[in-house]
Protein backbone atom coordinates (compact mmCIF):
# COMPACT_ATOMS: atom_id res chain seq x y z
CA UNK A 1 0.00 0.00 0.00
CA UNK A 2 2.87 2.34 0.78
CA UNK A 3 4.39 1.70 -2.61
CA UNK A 4 1.01 2.11 -4.33
CA UNK A 5 0.53 5.39 -2.48
CA UNK A 6 3.97 6.65 -3.51
CA UNK A 7 3.38 5.75 -7.14
CA UNK A 8 -0.13 7.20 -7.33
CA UNK A 9 0.94 10.45 -5.70
CA UNK A 10 3.96 10.71 -7.99
CA UNK A 11 1.77 10.20 -11.05
CA UNK A 12 -1.21 12.35 -10.25
CA UNK A 13 -0.33 14.62 -7.37
CA UNK A 14 -1.49 14.29 -3.79
CA UNK A 15 -4.71 16.25 -4.11
CA UNK A 16 -6.04 14.06 -6.93
CA UNK A 17 -5.25 10.69 -5.38
CA UNK A 18 -8.07 8.93 -3.55
CA UNK A 19 -7.98 6.04 -1.11
CA UNK A 20 -9.84 4.06 -3.81
CA UNK A 21 -6.91 4.51 -6.22
CA UNK A 22 -4.47 3.25 -3.62
CA UNK A 23 -6.46 0.16 -2.63
CA UNK A 24 -7.04 -0.74 -6.26
CA UNK A 25 -3.37 -0.41 -7.17
CA UNK A 26 -2.30 -2.38 -4.11
CA UNK A 27 -4.94 -5.05 -4.68
CA UNK A 28 -6.38 -4.83 -1.17
CA UNK A 29 -9.82 -4.00 0.17
CA UNK A 30 -10.87 -0.65 1.51
CA UNK A 31 -11.33 -2.08 4.96
CA UNK A 32 -7.75 -3.40 4.93
CA UNK A 33 -6.58 0.11 4.14
CA UNK A 34 -8.50 1.57 7.06
CA UNK A 35 -7.20 -1.10 9.40
CA UNK A 36 -3.73 0.24 8.75
CA UNK A 37 -4.29 3.93 8.24
CA UNK A 38 -6.77 6.44 9.58
CA UNK A 39 -6.63 8.58 6.44
CA UNK A 40 -4.98 9.22 3.12
CA UNK A 41 -2.62 11.66 4.80
CA UNK A 42 -1.56 9.08 7.36
CA UNK A 43 -0.75 6.59 4.61
CA UNK A 44 1.30 9.17 2.76
CA UNK A 45 3.19 10.07 5.92
CA UNK A 46 3.92 6.41 6.62
CA UNK A 47 5.19 5.96 3.06
CA UNK A 48 7.33 9.03 3.53
CA UNK A 49 8.78 7.90 6.85
CA UNK A 50 9.77 4.56 5.32
CA UNK A 51 11.39 6.26 2.38
CA UNK A 52 13.27 8.70 4.54
CA UNK A 53 14.57 6.05 6.84
CA UNK A 54 15.99 4.19 3.86
CA UNK A 55 17.54 7.29 2.31
CA UNK A 56 19.12 8.52 5.51
CA UNK A 57 20.57 5.08 6.23
CA UNK A 58 22.07 4.86 2.75
CA UNK A 59 23.54 8.34 2.93
CA UNK A 60 25.03 7.81 6.40
CA UNK A 61 26.56 4.49 5.32
CA UNK A 62 28.15 6.09 2.26
CA UNK A 63 29.43 9.03 4.30
CA UNK A 64 31.22 6.65 6.67
CA UNK A 65 33.15 4.97 3.84
CA UNK A 66 35.41 8.01 3.47
CA UNK A 67 37.66 9.82 5.90
CA UNK A 68 38.31 13.28 4.42
CA UNK A 69 35.31 15.54 4.98
CA UNK A 70 34.88 16.70 1.35
CA UNK A 71 35.05 13.05 0.25
CA UNK A 72 32.51 12.08 2.88
CA UNK A 73 30.12 14.73 1.58
CA UNK A 74 30.72 13.58 -1.99
CA UNK A 75 30.01 9.96 -1.07
CA UNK A 76 26.84 10.91 0.82
CA UNK A 77 25.58 13.01 -2.08
CA UNK A 78 26.39 10.21 -4.51
CA UNK A 79 24.22 7.83 -2.50
CA UNK A 80 21.40 10.37 -2.26
CA UNK A 81 21.40 11.31 -5.94
CA UNK A 82 21.72 7.66 -6.97
CA UNK A 83 18.70 6.67 -4.90
CA UNK A 84 16.60 9.55 -6.26
CA UNK A 85 17.69 8.91 -9.85
CA UNK A 86 16.75 5.24 -9.64
CA UNK A 87 13.21 6.04 -8.57
CA UNK A 88 12.14 9.28 -10.21
CA UNK A 89 8.55 8.87 -9.00
CA UNK A 90 9.74 8.58 -5.44
CA UNK A 91 12.01 11.58 -5.93
CA UNK A 92 9.04 13.60 -7.07
CA UNK A 93 6.94 12.47 -4.17
CA UNK A 94 9.65 13.32 -1.66
CA UNK A 95 10.47 16.78 -2.95
CA UNK A 96 7.30 18.09 -4.57
CA UNK A 97 4.24 16.23 -3.37
CA UNK A 98 4.98 15.69 0.30
CA UNK A 99 5.65 19.29 1.19
CA UNK A 100 2.34 20.19 -0.49
CA UNK A 101 0.29 17.71 1.51
CA UNK A 102 -0.31 19.87 4.57
CA UNK A 103 1.47 21.17 7.66
CA UNK A 104 2.29 17.76 9.17
CA UNK A 105 3.76 16.49 5.90
CA UNK A 106 5.71 19.67 5.55
CA UNK A 107 7.04 19.39 9.07
CA UNK A 108 8.44 15.94 8.26
CA UNK A 109 10.01 17.25 5.08
CA UNK A 110 11.82 19.94 7.08
CA UNK A 111 12.77 17.37 9.68
CA UNK A 112 14.17 15.09 6.98
CA UNK A 113 16.23 17.91 5.58
CA UNK A 114 17.33 18.64 9.13
CA UNK A 115 18.76 15.16 9.50
CA UNK A 116 21.31 15.93 6.82
CA UNK A 117 22.53 18.97 8.72
CA UNK A 118 24.79 16.90 10.98
CA UNK A 119 26.97 16.01 7.99
CA UNK A 120 28.10 19.57 7.80
CA UNK A 121 29.20 20.16 11.35
CA UNK A 122 32.66 18.82 10.52
CA UNK A 123 32.86 21.33 7.69
CA UNK A 124 32.60 24.13 10.21
CA UNK A 125 35.63 22.78 12.07
CA UNK A 126 37.54 22.29 8.84
CA UNK A 127 36.76 25.78 7.54
CA UNK A 128 39.18 27.40 9.98
CA UNK A 129 36.51 30.06 10.44
CA UNK A 130 34.17 27.98 12.58
CA UNK A 131 32.98 30.71 14.93
CA UNK A 132 32.71 33.41 12.32
CA UNK A 133 30.52 31.42 9.92
CA UNK A 134 26.85 32.33 10.36
CA UNK A 135 24.94 29.93 12.61
CA UNK A 136 22.59 29.25 9.66
CA UNK A 137 25.42 27.94 7.44
CA UNK A 138 24.13 24.36 7.64
CA UNK A 139 20.69 25.44 6.42
CA UNK A 140 22.46 27.30 3.63
CA UNK A 141 24.47 24.26 2.49
CA UNK A 142 21.40 22.03 2.54
CA UNK A 143 19.27 24.69 0.86
CA UNK A 144 21.72 25.04 -2.02
CA UNK A 145 21.68 21.31 -2.72
CA UNK A 146 17.92 21.15 -2.25
CA UNK A 147 17.33 23.93 -4.78
CA UNK A 148 19.29 22.22 -7.54
CA UNK A 149 17.68 18.84 -6.86
CA UNK A 150 14.21 20.39 -6.66
CA UNK A 151 14.56 22.19 -10.00
CA UNK A 152 15.72 19.00 -11.74
CA UNK A 153 12.93 16.89 -10.29
CA UNK A 154 10.31 19.48 -11.25
CA UNK A 155 11.73 19.61 -14.77
CA UNK A 156 11.26 15.84 -15.02
CA UNK A 157 14.99 15.15 -15.05
CA UNK A 158 15.36 13.15 -11.85
CA UNK A 159 17.00 10.31 -13.81
CA UNK A 160 19.93 12.57 -14.66
CA UNK A 161 20.57 13.78 -11.10
CA UNK A 162 23.91 11.94 -10.83
CA UNK A 163 25.39 14.18 -13.52
CA UNK A 164 24.82 17.16 -11.24
CA UNK A 165 26.95 15.74 -8.45
CA UNK A 166 29.89 18.13 -9.08
CA UNK A 167 27.65 21.22 -9.06
CA UNK A 168 25.78 20.10 -5.96
CA UNK A 169 29.04 19.26 -4.21
CA UNK A 170 30.27 22.77 -4.94
CA UNK A 171 27.04 24.25 -3.54
CA UNK A 172 27.39 22.32 -0.30
CA UNK A 173 31.11 22.94 0.22
CA UNK A 174 31.39 26.59 -0.79
CA UNK A 175 30.06 28.19 2.41
CA UNK A 176 32.67 26.20 4.38
CA UNK A 177 35.68 26.08 2.11
CA UNK A 178 35.22 29.07 -0.21
CA UNK A 179 35.02 29.03 -4.02
CA UNK A 180 38.62 28.00 -4.78
CA UNK A 181 38.63 24.88 -2.62
CA UNK A 182 35.03 24.00 -3.47
CA UNK A 183 35.81 24.27 -7.19
CA UNK A 184 38.85 22.03 -6.73
CA UNK A 185 36.69 19.37 -5.07
CA UNK A 186 34.11 19.82 -7.79
CA UNK A 187 36.70 19.11 -10.48
CA UNK A 188 37.96 16.05 -8.60
CA UNK A 189 34.43 14.70 -8.38
CA UNK A 190 33.86 15.35 -12.07
CA UNK A 191 37.08 13.54 -12.97
CA UNK A 192 36.38 10.47 -10.85
CA UNK A 193 32.62 10.38 -11.49
Amino acid at each position, binding site marked *: MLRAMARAVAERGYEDVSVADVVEAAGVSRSTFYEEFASKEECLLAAYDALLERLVTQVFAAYETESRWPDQVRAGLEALLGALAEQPDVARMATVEIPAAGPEAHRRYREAIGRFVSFFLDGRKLSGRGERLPKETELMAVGGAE*AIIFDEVVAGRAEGLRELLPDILF*AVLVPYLGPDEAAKEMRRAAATG
Partner: protein
Amino acid sequence: MMFVMAVSDRDMGGPFRVPAGGMEGPGPAVVRDRRGHLLEAMASVCAERGYPGTEVSEVAARVGVSEAEFYEHFRDKEDCFLAAINAGLAELITAATSAYSADKPLVAVVRDAAAGILDVLAEAPEVAHIGFVDYRTATPAALETYESGTRVLSSLLDQLRVDSPSDATLPSAAARAALGGAEGVIRGEIAAGRATELRESLPAVLYGCLVPFLGQEEALRQAELVSG
Protein backbone atom coordinates in the same frame (compact mmCIF):
# COMPACT_ATOMS: atom_id res chain seq x y z
CA MET B 1 -1.55 43.31 7.57
CA MET B 2 -0.59 46.30 5.52
CA PHE B 3 1.11 44.23 2.94
CA VAL B 4 -1.75 42.43 1.24
CA MET B 5 -3.94 45.49 1.52
CA ALA B 6 -1.42 47.71 -0.14
CA VAL B 7 -0.99 45.37 -3.05
CA SER B 8 -4.66 44.55 -3.42
CA ASP B 9 -5.38 48.22 -3.92
CA ARG B 10 -3.29 48.10 -7.04
CA ASP B 11 -4.37 44.65 -8.01
CA MET B 12 -7.40 45.64 -10.00
CA GLY B 13 -6.76 43.50 -13.03
CA GLY B 14 -7.98 40.28 -11.45
CA PRO B 15 -11.45 38.79 -11.58
CA PHE B 16 -12.78 41.75 -9.68
CA ARG B 17 -16.38 42.69 -10.14
CA VAL B 18 -18.44 45.48 -8.75
CA PRO B 19 -21.70 43.83 -7.81
CA ALA B 20 -24.76 44.90 -9.69
CA GLY B 21 -27.41 46.77 -7.80
CA GLY B 22 -26.17 50.36 -7.83
CA MET B 23 -26.81 52.11 -4.55
CA GLU B 24 -27.93 48.88 -2.91
CA GLY B 25 -24.55 47.13 -3.08
CA PRO B 26 -21.28 48.12 -1.47
CA GLY B 27 -19.27 50.78 -3.29
CA PRO B 28 -16.05 50.00 -5.19
CA ALA B 29 -13.81 50.89 -2.23
CA VAL B 30 -15.61 48.42 0.01
CA VAL B 31 -15.41 45.71 -2.64
CA ARG B 32 -11.69 46.31 -2.97
CA ASP B 33 -11.30 46.03 0.81
CA ARG B 34 -13.25 42.79 0.80
CA ARG B 35 -10.99 41.37 -1.84
CA GLY B 36 -7.94 42.40 0.18
CA HIS B 37 -9.41 40.88 3.33
CA LEU B 38 -10.13 37.64 1.50
CA LEU B 39 -6.52 37.47 0.28
CA GLU B 40 -5.38 38.04 3.84
CA ALA B 41 -7.70 35.33 5.16
CA MET B 42 -6.53 32.93 2.45
CA ALA B 43 -2.94 33.47 3.59
CA SER B 44 -3.72 32.89 7.24
CA VAL B 45 -5.89 29.79 6.70
CA CYS B 46 -3.22 28.30 4.40
CA ALA B 47 -0.51 29.04 6.94
CA GLU B 48 -2.48 27.05 9.50
CA ARG B 49 -3.84 24.17 7.45
CA GLY B 50 -1.71 23.94 4.34
CA TYR B 51 -3.17 24.42 0.90
CA PRO B 52 -4.96 21.05 0.55
CA GLY B 53 -6.65 21.53 3.94
CA THR B 54 -7.86 25.03 3.16
CA GLU B 55 -11.60 25.43 2.53
CA VAL B 56 -13.24 28.36 0.81
CA SER B 57 -15.97 28.30 3.48
CA GLU B 58 -13.45 29.03 6.22
CA VAL B 59 -11.75 31.79 4.26
CA ALA B 60 -15.11 33.47 3.66
CA ALA B 61 -16.19 32.99 7.28
CA ARG B 62 -13.07 34.74 8.61
CA VAL B 63 -13.93 37.82 6.64
CA GLY B 64 -17.58 37.52 7.60
CA VAL B 65 -18.85 37.18 4.04
CA SER B 66 -20.84 34.44 2.37
CA GLU B 67 -19.27 31.84 0.11
CA ALA B 68 -21.31 33.34 -2.71
CA GLU B 69 -19.53 36.62 -2.18
CA PHE B 70 -16.18 34.86 -2.21
CA TYR B 71 -17.04 33.60 -5.69
CA GLU B 72 -17.82 37.12 -6.82
CA HIS B 73 -14.17 37.95 -6.25
CA PHE B 74 -12.47 34.67 -7.18
CA ARG B 75 -13.19 31.82 -9.55
CA ASP B 76 -12.16 29.20 -7.00
CA LYS B 77 -9.75 28.42 -4.17
CA GLU B 78 -6.73 28.29 -6.48
CA ASP B 79 -7.60 31.61 -8.09
CA CYS B 80 -7.63 33.27 -4.66
CA PHE B 81 -4.46 31.48 -3.55
CA LEU B 82 -2.59 32.55 -6.68
CA ALA B 83 -3.84 36.12 -6.27
CA ALA B 84 -2.47 36.14 -2.70
CA ILE B 85 0.83 34.71 -3.93
CA ASN B 86 1.08 37.14 -6.82
CA ALA B 87 0.35 40.09 -4.56
CA GLY B 88 3.15 38.91 -2.26
CA LEU B 89 5.50 38.29 -5.15
CA ALA B 90 4.83 41.76 -6.56
CA GLU B 91 5.83 43.23 -3.21
CA LEU B 92 9.03 41.15 -3.11
CA ILE B 93 9.99 42.14 -6.64
CA THR B 94 9.39 45.79 -5.80
CA ALA B 95 11.61 45.42 -2.73
CA ALA B 96 14.34 43.79 -4.83
CA THR B 97 14.19 46.12 -7.81
CA SER B 98 14.02 49.32 -5.75
CA ALA B 99 17.44 48.30 -4.39
CA TYR B 100 18.86 48.62 -7.86
CA SER B 101 20.47 51.75 -9.20
CA ALA B 102 22.95 52.06 -12.04
CA ASP B 103 25.63 53.86 -10.00
CA LYS B 104 25.54 51.44 -7.08
CA PRO B 105 28.01 48.55 -6.73
CA LEU B 106 26.35 45.20 -7.32
CA VAL B 107 27.26 43.99 -3.84
CA ALA B 108 25.30 46.88 -2.36
CA VAL B 109 22.37 46.08 -4.65
CA VAL B 110 22.35 42.48 -3.43
CA ARG B 111 22.62 43.64 0.19
CA ASP B 112 19.74 46.13 -0.09
CA ALA B 113 17.59 43.73 -2.11
CA ALA B 114 18.08 40.99 0.50
CA ALA B 115 17.28 43.44 3.33
CA GLY B 116 14.17 44.65 1.49
CA ILE B 117 12.93 41.13 0.87
CA LEU B 118 13.46 40.09 4.50
CA ASP B 119 11.63 43.20 5.72
CA VAL B 120 8.64 42.50 3.50
CA LEU B 121 8.49 38.90 4.73
CA ALA B 122 8.89 39.86 8.38
CA GLU B 123 6.05 42.33 8.12
CA ALA B 124 3.64 39.75 6.69
CA PRO B 125 4.51 36.44 8.35
CA GLU B 126 1.45 34.60 7.02
CA VAL B 127 2.17 35.63 3.48
CA ALA B 128 5.80 34.63 4.09
CA HIS B 129 4.52 31.25 5.17
CA ILE B 130 2.42 30.59 2.08
CA GLY B 131 5.16 32.08 -0.08
CA PHE B 132 7.98 29.93 1.22
CA VAL B 133 6.28 26.90 2.67
CA ASP B 134 3.00 26.10 0.90
CA TYR B 135 3.51 27.95 -2.26
CA ARG B 136 5.90 26.35 -4.64
CA THR B 137 4.40 22.90 -4.56
CA ALA B 138 0.74 23.75 -3.98
CA THR B 139 -0.45 23.86 -7.58
CA PRO B 140 1.23 23.63 -11.00
CA ALA B 141 0.63 27.34 -11.64
CA ALA B 142 2.22 28.25 -8.30
CA LEU B 143 5.19 26.07 -9.11
CA GLU B 144 5.62 27.81 -12.45
CA THR B 145 5.58 31.20 -10.73
CA TYR B 146 8.17 30.01 -8.23
CA GLU B 147 10.47 28.69 -10.94
CA SER B 148 10.28 31.90 -12.96
CA GLY B 149 10.87 34.01 -9.83
CA THR B 150 14.02 32.06 -8.98
CA ARG B 151 15.28 32.42 -12.55
CA VAL B 152 15.01 36.21 -12.31
CA LEU B 153 16.77 36.40 -8.94
CA SER B 154 19.45 33.88 -9.98
CA SER B 155 20.35 35.89 -13.03
CA LEU B 156 20.68 39.03 -10.89
CA LEU B 157 23.01 37.17 -8.54
CA ASP B 158 24.93 35.63 -11.40
CA GLN B 159 26.14 39.08 -12.45
CA LEU B 160 28.45 38.90 -9.41
CA ARG B 161 30.48 36.40 -11.41
CA VAL B 162 32.36 39.25 -13.10
CA ASP B 163 33.41 40.57 -9.67
CA SER B 164 34.84 37.23 -8.66
CA PRO B 165 38.51 37.44 -7.65
CA SER B 166 38.81 33.67 -7.94
CA ASP B 167 40.46 32.02 -10.95
CA ALA B 168 38.36 28.93 -10.42
CA THR B 169 35.61 28.27 -12.92
CA LEU B 170 32.39 28.35 -10.96
CA PRO B 171 29.66 25.88 -11.85
CA SER B 172 26.79 27.23 -13.93
CA ALA B 173 24.44 26.53 -11.04
CA ALA B 174 26.45 28.67 -8.58
CA ALA B 175 23.90 31.49 -8.45
CA ARG B 176 20.91 29.17 -8.25
CA ALA B 177 22.61 27.28 -5.44
CA ALA B 178 23.43 30.50 -3.58
CA LEU B 179 19.82 31.58 -3.89
CA GLY B 180 18.74 28.13 -2.70
CA GLY B 181 21.01 28.56 0.31
CA ALA B 182 19.33 31.86 1.14
CA GLU B 183 15.93 30.23 0.67
CA GLY B 184 17.00 27.44 3.00
CA VAL B 185 17.82 29.96 5.72
CA ILE B 186 14.55 31.87 5.23
CA ARG B 187 12.42 28.73 5.07
CA GLY B 188 14.08 27.37 8.19
CA GLU B 189 13.25 30.55 10.12
CA ILE B 190 9.67 30.66 8.89
CA ALA B 191 9.09 26.97 9.63
CA ALA B 192 10.46 27.55 13.14
CA GLY B 193 7.87 30.30 13.64
CA ARG B 194 10.41 33.12 13.55
CA ALA B 195 9.18 34.89 10.42
CA THR B 196 8.83 38.22 12.24
CA GLU B 197 12.53 38.12 13.18
CA LEU B 198 13.72 37.42 9.65
CA ARG B 199 15.71 40.64 9.48
CA GLU B 200 18.19 39.03 11.88
CA SER B 201 19.03 36.53 9.16
CA LEU B 202 20.38 39.22 6.86
CA PRO B 203 24.06 38.47 7.60
CA ALA B 204 23.57 34.77 6.83
CA VAL B 205 21.50 35.41 3.72
CA LEU B 206 24.05 37.90 2.46
CA TYR B 207 26.96 35.58 3.22
CA GLY B 208 25.27 32.77 1.30
CA CYS B 209 24.59 34.96 -1.71
CA LEU B 210 28.10 36.39 -1.88
CA VAL B 211 30.44 33.58 -0.86
CA PRO B 212 30.61 31.68 -4.18
CA PHE B 213 31.53 34.87 -6.01
CA LEU B 214 33.58 36.96 -3.60
CA GLY B 215 35.18 34.30 -1.42
CA GLN B 216 34.82 33.72 2.29
CA GLU B 217 36.76 36.70 3.65
CA GLU B 218 34.92 39.34 1.62
CA ALA B 219 31.54 37.63 2.12
CA LEU B 220 32.15 37.47 5.89
CA ARG B 221 33.22 41.10 5.92
CA GLN B 222 30.00 42.14 4.17
CA ALA B 223 27.93 39.96 6.51
CA GLU B 224 29.62 41.43 9.57
CA LEU B 225 28.95 44.95 8.31
CA VAL B 226 25.19 44.32 8.37
CA SER B 227 25.03 42.35 11.61
CA GLY B 228 23.79 43.75 14.87
